[in-house]
């Protein structure tokens, strides 16, 4: 809808095409991202160039836009072009050859005046388990919102692997490229059984008609049962999710996360409202996931963090205050000051 009013260069199919075919011109999309990010609800759902071939052009100025347009035109007239709606997010291969799976650079977000995220730079390596801590309002959740496409930053960039520009994807697309999220407040589908909740979350072709025709294969059933085992809800499999306890809902949501089988898991306060042993099991689970997956955990509970964390990032007032092993961080005077300061 918004494309009607603000014709972003990156909406031009040509621009998509050039990205899609991996040509060197990125600027149009880039500029589009800048402009686009100013209003948070704009242009969701509309396809954009999903690939970003060469990151050196990244902060190219508006000048590039016009070249972009020129390029667009050429692209439109190319015979071997491939339109963006032809490639789907899941077809994008994730390139982590340089190590990091998540690049957040120079991110800024402010909600009417208040700076929630302030020049945030954060890199997460593939397969690591990262804990993010910080006092309330440090911007932990907002950061996750940016990564999952819920909130658009005013400026900065967020890349998944080297090529996938998250700021140009919608929530579903981000989910498809392999980022799963568990919310702070557990949100499961109350009127569905536990089983169905997992089924819905399961990695699959999630377009409308495939979904309409989808039938559970044996393999998928096994997978669901397996996850049911992991989260220990076999007995409740057929109960409506609404009847679960808070802790169980937490588990269910983690289960849904597993079903998505994402490359990157964003886990927001997983152990809130859990008993002690539930907490331990969560800790085991998360650590076991690390390696095959990349896990980013946001948590207040220091004991829990200590029990799982190899590397800890401390956010404060929207930017990274300190980073390192739990011990390093805990002895960091600034961190102490911040936490005592409260």
């Amino acid at each position, binding site marked *: 809808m918004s494309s009607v009013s603000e014709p972003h260069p990156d909406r031009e199919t040509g621009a998509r095409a050039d990205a899609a075919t991996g040509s060197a011109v990125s600027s149009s999309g880039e500029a589009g991202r800048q402009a686009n990010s100013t209003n948070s609800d704009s242009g969701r759902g509309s396809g954009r160039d999903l690939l970003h071939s060469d990151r050196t052009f990244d902060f190219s100025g508006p000048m590039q836009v016009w070249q972009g347009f020129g390029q667009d035109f050429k692209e439109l007239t190319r015979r071997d072009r491939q339109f963006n709606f032809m490639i789907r997010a899941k077809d994008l291969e994730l390139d982590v050859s340089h190590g990091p799976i998540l690049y957040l650079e120079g991110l800024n977000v402010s909600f009417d005046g208040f700076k929630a995220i302030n020049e945030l730079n954060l890199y997460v390596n593939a397969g690591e388990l990262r804990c993010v801590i910080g006092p309330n309002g440090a911007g932990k959740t907002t950061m996750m919102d940016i990564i999952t496409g819920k909130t658009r930053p005013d400026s900065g960039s967020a890349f998944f692997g080297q090529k996938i520009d998250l700021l140009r994807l919608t929530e579903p697309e981000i989910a498809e490229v392999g980022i*799963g999220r568990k919310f702070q407040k557990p949100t499961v589908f109350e009127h569905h059984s536990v089983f169905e909740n997992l089924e819905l979350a399961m990695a699959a072709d999630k377009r409308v008609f495939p979904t309409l025709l989808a039938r559970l294969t044996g393999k998928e059933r096994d997978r669901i049962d397996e996850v049911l085992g992991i989260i220990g809800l076999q007995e409740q499999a057929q109960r409506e999710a609404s009847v679960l306890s808070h802790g169980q809902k937490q588990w269910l949501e983690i289960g849904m996360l597993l079903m998505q089988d994402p490359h990157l898991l964003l886990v927001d306060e997983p152990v809130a409202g859990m008993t002690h042993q539930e907490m331990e099991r969560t800790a085991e689970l998360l650590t076991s996931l690390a390696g095959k997956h990349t896990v980013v955990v946001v948590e207040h509970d220091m004991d829990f963090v200590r029990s799982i964390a190899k590397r800890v990032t401390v956010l404060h007032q929207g930017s990274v205050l300190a980073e390192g092993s739990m011990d390093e961080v805990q002895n960091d005077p600034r961190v102490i000051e911040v936490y005592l300061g409260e």
Partner: protein
Amino acid sequence: MGLLQPLKGDTGGKIMLAVLALIAVLVPILNLLVPEGNPLHVSTFTVTLLGKYLTYALLAVAVDLVWGYLGILSLGHGAFFALGGYAMGMYLMRQIGDRGVYGDPLLPDFMVFLDWQQLPWFWQGFDQFWYAALMILLVPGLLAFVFGWLAFRSRVTGVYLSIITQALTYALMLAFFRNEMGFGGNNGLTDFKDLLGFDLQSDGTRIGLFLASALALALGYWACRWIVTSKLGRVAVAVRDAESRVRFIGYRVDRVKLAIWTFSAVLAGVAGALYVPQVGIINPGEFSPLNSIELVVWVAIGGRATLYGAVIGAVLVNYGKTVFTGAFPEAWLFVLGGLFVLVTVFLPAGIAGLLKTLRRRRSEPTALKEKSA
């Protein structure tokens, strides 16, 4: 077996379909074979009445699909119903041919006395049934698609969505009232003669239309069940309950909505098309926002999110209307209004809900078994 898959665990639906089947068998017999005067005789009046109810029921099912399972309260479904009706009406008008009062072979009467010289472009082709049939599906579908495409992409939800659907049907009503539009203005389309060569006034045709309505309802119901029992149906309910969450697990909510919404509109269109030849008139009044609201009421009374409930609601309310307007013409609005209030306050789950709880209370275990099946 596979055909019955969608009806699994839907006792209400089965009963409803069984009733439908029985009526579909009984009524023609009682109407055609049992002689008049015999207490068992079902008059043609009753047949058309039943036929009308069935088309309403189909419409209600269409509404329940989007409201009950997708959480979209459409206050404009009457528009799709009416559009389907108009498409059929235009075909029937063309069938009149030179039997109109002015005996014009091409132009319908209302065009003759507004001295239109030739048939407007959008009336072309409606002399062919296949074309009309196509339009019955296409016109409501297309409108719904465009409207939904806009609304769902820009994430219009809740009352905002409801109100703009209302605006849609309201605008259409005003437009169709204009005589310049070429749809007969306030008088609409009427005085139909025959359909596919069958005289609309013969009992046989009426029975035929009645059976067609019954079949349409059965198929429509089955199709809706098929959708809601599919994974897509579960996604829809998920959207209803937690829209944004669905996005985060990778479904394109706007497209899910669009698909189901459009299908529902097409169903409504079909209902309208079957409605028109049975009541013998289509006029802009059908677009009136109040009609659309009323049909939401049917669904609510029958029981939201239980498709068979919609059927019950539609039939009961309209049956009530028929009885009350005849029995106590002065006071029937009190009764109807009171009914609406009482049901919403005391039966939040509608009649279907009531039945369910009764069944539950009688046999808890079976209920559980059904669920786990």
